[in-house]
């Protein structure tokens, strides 16, 4: 909401500079976004009068003029064709500046000296729409009537006028010298979307007095009720409808003061009737609508819901199909306006309009909001209407408008007002509980001060009953907490003393087991050299093909966003692999040598409905959110770096009972270099080398490795606190063996046999070499282990160890056809 200070000052005294004013208003709750200094960029531009006009000796298209700028007479060369001797025009003097950081300096044009520039309206930073009397092209010729009206009190003495206006700053003359304060008004305060509302707040903020507009209507006789009627058929959507009738309408431009006010508020002046409705809307916050009364069939207004098949051509020239349920204003035969949104072309006020029915009504905010949204036309009126208007303001605003119509000679106001008010409500009253307010705020505001504050914003307080009557424009104030806010914002939020929470019952500030385990995961991953990434939870449906997912994969069944920012962001991801690959690709293509990354995030699964967590609330419409640990890496790494990370994680979380099982059918991964992680028989994740086709899809020109693990399954199997085991008292015995086995035998098979055969004295098996190549026959590999034995209660003898070794070697021979090699 743009509030020109001049306009505000009509209703409140502002005795501080604009910046201080803005600061104070912000601190009492009317947030100032900024202060626009009108005409700030128009410097040293004054009114001049053309004295002579001659052709330039050396240029056909240029003219040379002497111009009187008050203090002196200067010569100016111009290319403009629309000036005449005696015209008053804006002159940018030598050293002046214009919008767009344009500097004007004297100089020569084709050899003739020019000491300034005559300005068009565009050069002053405005358009023909702001100043309808300006010519589209050419110099802005100032209206002599305007100058006379404003500076010479209507005197026809040209000398006197000249002495008053020549050399005058153009900003003052055009009324573009105001400070415009831009407020950000929150949706709960529609009353502040008006000059009057802001003036009320300003007065309360600064402790000055608030003057309401004085409204007195000069009626011209007759009786509106004999000439027109209003019927509200759907009172649920229209609590109040007021109307007045204006006869002998004279459509003409509005006076300068009104045009200046509108311009400053960002509204283009059009004609007196339109300008008055806009002016009153800004000033009083109530949208008005003017119908050409002669086009209202049956001289009747009916407020009703639209019927099936109804349509209307709105003022913007568009044909609108109306849905049943939308509220319309109709005459005896057809819709003439979409209520609270926009009027119809069939009853539009034109230059030829003779009689006007002026509407000031309140419609149901939600209904207006839905209608405006459906029709795709949010207007200034609808956006005010949908926030909820003050029912009691409608008639005041209407009177204010007709007062101006009469005062400006725009028409004659027929006596009387039509006022249909089916939604009249008693004013709201709230008990004023001083102690409770102070208790909520943590303050010690006296009763007197509270009452003074509330009265300053027009709440009435009955001290005898301790009751507050809430003004009708404050729909938002419903109970004690709301009153507390009123008190607090004028008492000063920053006068509230900071205190520390006290409480008899302690709360424990601790992390849950799950949260501690998540910390553990972060620590383990970073300690292993992996950095954490964040990626979006949205995805494109095309990601599934990019990672080679089969068409029938259940991961393709994703939660779909109904109003996404684009297809790229249209589903909630069911897998994090594409995002990890995208990040690896970004780094790879930026020539980052190595990346070791992880992400702790969620995927969203529709596989099973979410279980209700809150009594009485069905959450089955929600997906299950699966917390996922994704690991990704490329560079001087291989499968075992990734596996090592997974293993350290399992170790850190003290997960037991896990197994790695070859997964050769996963289309995203390399068929021979991929493993599934199972914990106690349940699959908890998959990891491995990414399939080269998938790497190609992501433009990754090197091998990359990815793991996806379900955090819940890791944490669910996390072990309890470590339990101390005695340090060994007796020495260990180590035996090394090396064997030749078939290439396809996995070390796990060897280790399982050693494990089974070694008996209780086995402490550890360490794989220390796997070799293929020279001296190893084709199709075989050499595998070497250190096997460490130890007994808890005695020093092992050679015999003990030999017995175990024999069993192991036998087992390896018979089980795997292993050939023992000499050490």
């Amino acid at each position: 909401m743009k509030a020109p200070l001049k306009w505000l000052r009509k209703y409140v005294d502002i005795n501080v500079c604009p910046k201080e004013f803005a600061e104070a208003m912000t601190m009492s709750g009317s947030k100032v976004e900024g202060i626009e200094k009108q005409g700030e960029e128009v410097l040293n531009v004054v009114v001049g009068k053309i004295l002579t006009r001659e052709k330039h000796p050396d240029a056909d298209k240029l003219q040379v003029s002497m111009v009187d700028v008050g203090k002196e007479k200067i010569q100016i060369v111009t290319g403009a064709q629309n000036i005449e001797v005696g015209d008053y025009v804006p002159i940018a003097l030598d050293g002046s500046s214009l919008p767009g950081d344009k500097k004007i300096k004297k100089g020569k044009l084709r050899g003739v000296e020019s000491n300034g520039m005559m300005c068009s309206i565009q050069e002053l930073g405005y358009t023909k729409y702001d100043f309808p009397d300006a010519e589209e092209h050419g110099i802005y010729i100032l209206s002599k009537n305007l100058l006379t009206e404003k500076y010479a009190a209507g005197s026809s003495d040209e000398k006197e006028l000249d002495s008053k206006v020549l050399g005058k700053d153009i900003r003052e003359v055009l009324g573009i010298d105001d400070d415009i304060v831009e407020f950000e008004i929150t949706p709960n305060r529609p009353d502040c979307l008006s000059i009057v509302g802001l003036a009320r707040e300003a007065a309360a903020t600064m402790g000055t007095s608030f003057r309401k507009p004085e409204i007195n209507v000069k009626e011209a006789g007759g009786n509106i009720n004999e000439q027109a009627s209003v019927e509200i058929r759907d009172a649920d959507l229209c609590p109040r409808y007021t109307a007045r009738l204006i006869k002998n309408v004279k459509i003409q431009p509005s006076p300068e003061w009104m045009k200046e006010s509108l311009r400053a508020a960002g509204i283009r002046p059009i004609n007196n009737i339109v300008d008055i409705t806009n002016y009153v809307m800004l000033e009083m916050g109530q949208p008005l609508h003017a119908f050409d009364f002669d086009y209202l069939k049956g001289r009747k207004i009916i407020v009703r819901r639209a019927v099936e098949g109804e349509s209307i051509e709105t003022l913007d020239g568009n044909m609108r199909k109306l849905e049943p349920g939308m509220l319309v204003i109709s005459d005896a035969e057809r819709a003439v306006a979409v209520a609270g949104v926009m009027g119809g072309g069939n009853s539009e006020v034109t230059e030829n309009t003779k009689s006007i029915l002026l509407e000031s009504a309140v419609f149901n905010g939600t209904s207006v909001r839905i209608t405006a949204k459906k029709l795709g036309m949010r207007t200034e009126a609808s956006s005010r209407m949908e926030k909820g208007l003050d029912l009691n303001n409608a008639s005041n605003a209407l009177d204010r408008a007709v007062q101006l119509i009469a005062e400006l000679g725009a028409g004659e106001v027929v006596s009387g007002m039509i006022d249909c008010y089916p939604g009249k409500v008693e004013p709201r009253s709230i008990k004023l509980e001083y102690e409770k307010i102070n208790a909520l705020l943590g303050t010690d505001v006296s009763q007197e001060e509270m009452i003074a504050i509330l009265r300053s914003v027009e709440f009435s307080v009955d001290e005898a009953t301790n009751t507050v009557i809430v003004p009708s424009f404050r729909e938002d104030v419903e109970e004690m907490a709301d009153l507390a806010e009123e008190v607090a914002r004028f008492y000063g939020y920053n006068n509230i003393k900071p205190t520390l929470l006290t409480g008899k019952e302690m709360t424990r500030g601790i992390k849950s087991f799950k949260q501690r385990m998540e910390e553990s995961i972060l620590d383990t991953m970073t300690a292993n050299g992996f950095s954490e990434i964040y990626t979006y939870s949205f995805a494109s449906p095309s990601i599934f093909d990019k990672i080679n997912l089969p068409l029938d994969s259940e991961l393709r069944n994703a939660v779909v966003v109904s109003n996404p920012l684009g297809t790229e962001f249209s589903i909630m991801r069911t897998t994090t692999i594409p995002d990890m690959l995208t990040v690896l690709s970004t780094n790879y293509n930026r020539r980052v040598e190595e990346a070791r990354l992880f992400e702790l995030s969620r995927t969203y699964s529709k596989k099973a409905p979410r279980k209700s967590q809150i009594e009485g609330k069905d959450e089955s419409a929600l997906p299950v959110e699966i917390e996922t640990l994704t690991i990704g890496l490329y560079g001087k790494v291989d499968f075992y770096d990734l596996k090592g990370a997974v293993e350290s994680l399992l170790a850190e979380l003290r997960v037991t009972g896990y197994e790695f099982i070859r997964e050769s059918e996963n289309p995203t991964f390399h068929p021979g270099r991929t493993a599934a992680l199972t914990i106690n028989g349940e699959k908890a994740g998959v990891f491995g080398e990414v399939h080269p086709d998938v790497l190609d899809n992501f433009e990754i020109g090197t091998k990359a490795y990815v793991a996806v693990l379900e955090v819940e399954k890791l944490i669910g199997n996390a072990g309890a606190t470590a339990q101390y085991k005695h340090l060994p008292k007796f020495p260990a015995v180590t035996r090394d063996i090396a064997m030749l086995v078939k290439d396809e035998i996995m070390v796990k098979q060897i280790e399982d046999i050693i494990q089974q055969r070694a008996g209780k004295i086995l402490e550890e098996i360490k794989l220390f070499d796997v070799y293929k190549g020279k001296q190893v026959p084709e199709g075989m590999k050499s595998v070497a282990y250190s096997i460490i034995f130890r007994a808890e209660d005695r020093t092992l003898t050679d015999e003990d160890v030999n017995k175990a070794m024999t069993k192991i070697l036998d087992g390896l021979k018979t089980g795997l056809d292993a050939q023992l090699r000499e050490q």
Partner: protein
Amino acid sequence: MKEQLNGIQASAEKELATAQSIQELENLRVKYLGKKGELTSVLRGMGALSAEERPVIGQLANEVRVFIESRLDKAVKDLAGKERTLKLKQEIIDITMPGKKANFGRRHPLTQVVDEIKEVFLGMGYQIAEGPEVELDYFNFEAMNIPKNHPSRDVQDTFYIDDNVVLRTHTSPVQARVMKSQNPPIRVICPGRVYRSDEVDATHSPVFHQVEGLVVDKGVTMGDLVGTLQVFAKVLFGENTKIRLRPHHFPFTEPSAEVDVSCWGCGGSGCRICKGEGWVEILGAGMVSPKVLRECGIDPNVYSGFAFGLGVERVAMARFNIDDMRLFTENDVRFLKQF
């Protein structure tokens, strides 16, 4: 015999003085003091001495032994010292060569900010609450006093799944879940991912993170809120940080405030970070609206509470002097390694 002993002492002294290595000294030890050494062989001849001479010579022999032993020990010590000094000299290295570092990874800057916030509030007795990101409209809006078709829904730019399911626009639905499932006293923070339909640019993202806090108990005041936020701001932005509350409107709090912290760039005198204001808006806060309390089954006549919320990206950008939000989700390793 006496002469013999004196001779041994003299020659040992001489030889010890010129010995150059530990080995030589060892050889001398054997030569003089060993089982077959000179001193031993002299002593073997003691049997031939008279009873009067024996103790005299015996004492002398002992003196010679002690003399040689002490000289020998001293020489060994000196020499070892010299050798060690020499060795140390030879062991000089180029200390400007690079150190060997363990290659740690980094927590994402956003995680680091959330970690710090968690730490502050854990210390003040808060717990950490979580909830779903794809959320019922009820928890996200209605329980927060934002009914369907309410104008303030416009401010929220919501992603919808269907009429009743949204991507949560704030972490407030977690507050509603906590209040509905837990009795006061409640002290929780709710960190998490939230969604609003903003196009991606340097300062906007459709996916971002918030931390909200909620306290409900008997006798909680707005002063408590101010005090809490003050502690928080000081921890996060430095001991000299001041806060400023401006009245604002949120449907779920009453009274409501926007909270500025004094600019960490200039301390309040005005700079680029604060756009000359001296203050930077960082939080939204307020006393929990009685409507919200009632909706969540808590009697506002008995309990009161406060809530606050802040954007993690915003704080991280301020903290680490990051000028483009997109860096957070681009995840360039060279970016991640800086924090």
